[in-house]
């Protein structure tokens, strides 16, 4: 079963930088985006627009139609102009569809979840996607490190070591191999 998710510009740009256009689809997501995100690419550099359009043409990303009611919803968010129209549209659509949204700006997440009364758990970030890809063995430790470096070179720096977080998560979720807990009488 695939999972609907609404993508903001940021993740699309990151997918281009790391040259992994199918990453989300590999994780069984069905990514959607809005006309506002598309327009940001249309105003951007040709290579970014080409990447975006290829995602659309190959069906890896679908542009969901905004309705007039969505725009009215967006305009009625208190102080809606504090976030970009693209961010706002992704959150409004995600709320309408009851699905998750992927964006990276911590401030946008805080602000929009508060004003759209959305649970922050409904928001994913680039890091979540990469960690999920590592957990499901789509990405290796080596690839994750390389991706982190590429993103950092493109002014996208995680405030933590992605590989370290990924490895510690894997360790925590792994079954107790030596039965240490049992032997030590903790069970």
């Amino acid at each position, binding site marked *: 079963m695939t999972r609907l998710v609404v993508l*903001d*510009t*940021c993740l699309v*740009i990151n997918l281009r930088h790391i040259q992994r256009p199918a990453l989300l689809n590999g994780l069984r997501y069905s990514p959607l985006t809005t*006309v*506002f995100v598309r*327009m*940001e*690419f249309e*105003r*951007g*550099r040709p290579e*970014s627009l080409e990447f975006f359009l290829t995602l659309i043409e190959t069906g890896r990303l679908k542009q969901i*139609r*905004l*309705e*007039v*009611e*969505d*725009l*009215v919803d*967006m*305009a009625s968010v208190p102080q*809606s*102009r*504090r*976030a*970009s*129209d*693209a*961010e706002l549209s992704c959150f409004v659509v995600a709320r309408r569809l009851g699905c998750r949204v992927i964006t*990276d*700006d*911590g*401030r*946008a*997440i805080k*602000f929009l979840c508060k004003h759209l009364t959305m649970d922050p758990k409904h928001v994913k*970030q*680039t*890091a*979540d996607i990469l*960690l999920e890809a590592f957990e499901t063995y789509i990405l290796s430790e080596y690839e994750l490190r390389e991706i982190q470096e590429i993103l950092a070179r493109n*002014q*996208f*720096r*995680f*405030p*933590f070591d992605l590989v370290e*977080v990924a490895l510690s998560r894997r360790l925590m979720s792994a079954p107790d191999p030596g039965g240490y807990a049992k032997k030590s009488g903790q069970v």
Partner: protein
Amino acid sequence: MSFDYELLGKKLREAREGLLIELEEAAETLEMSPYDYVEVETGQRHLTGDQIVLLANLYRHDFRYFVTGDYPSAESQIQEMFRLNENISQADRIAIQEFSRLCEYQAFLEELLGNQYDPLPDYGQRDFGHKYYKRQGEEAATWERDRLILGRQPIPNIFQLLTKQGMRVFRRKLEDRNISGLYLRHPVAGHCILVNSLDDIFRQNFSAAHEYCHALFDSGRQQQVSYENGATKQHAPELEWRADSFAGNFLVPKARLELDFTRPSGETKWLELTREVARRFSVNPKVVLIRFSEMDWINDELKRALFSDPRLIIHAHEKYDPEIPPQLSEGTKARVTQAIQRGLTWHFLKLCDEAYRQEKITYRKVLEMLLLPIEDGIALLNDLSVFVEIGTP
């Protein structure tokens, strides 16, 4: 409450006609026939949200203007400006519409940051005791220098001086060289000035002071376009004479000239003096000659001779733009210069930076407001050490 498609259609039509966009182009944007688009503008055909967004983008409007009834835009002022100045080209109309949006953004940022300014004096309401427009400009220039505690010194950065009074001042390249600048009284952003950056920086300083005069005297008119070519000054030319007189007196005060300079003899000496004064006060030599003439330092014959002397020209490399901070590295300076050439200001960039750091706006909102291609915006923000704050998973 149902959505008012008739009102939407009316707004769309006004916006399209204001920007001289053909019906066919609008229809093409929505991939529909012109016949169908006519129905959109009459409210008979209902648009989707996507289609409204595409048209808002084409017409350089915030989508909120089209879907809400209370969005405070300067639409009526701009439409009036376009109506009174039919010769404004399509490209310049688009630039003016974008300028209006930048003014709205700036007012929004200042409001978020709690910046407050005292209202400007309204000299239009003052009783001068006479009806000589040029003299009114001269008197107001003196009062303004006193009010702003400028003494008689040259003004190093007129744009900063106006911005510090809460005015929205932007510079953009307008393709019509005859338009030196314009003034707009925005219902929310207040006094807004656009200076044509196609002119050299000394000319732009004069234009800024000229438009400042319109803000001081003519804000009741809501808008005013200033032309360099006197022949095109069709609407209230006396207001333009007053603004020119104000700008000359404000930028180059007579008292300072009398204090620091003595009248030389011989045309060459006059040329040297004119160039020296022009460089010191950052105005074009012709402005200085007009000041000399107004002070009866030179007669008409000498003025004409000096006006046509090619040695009077001050070349671009002798002028500097006060809006580009000298302390920036070469790379950053190049990017900031590019941003300024595209119509942004250093003050606006600093406001964006401050609002983001104070967590008033999101990173992407900053990018949106810069009106730059997203990658260029990211590079510029990187130069300013503004990075997206990524949350922890």
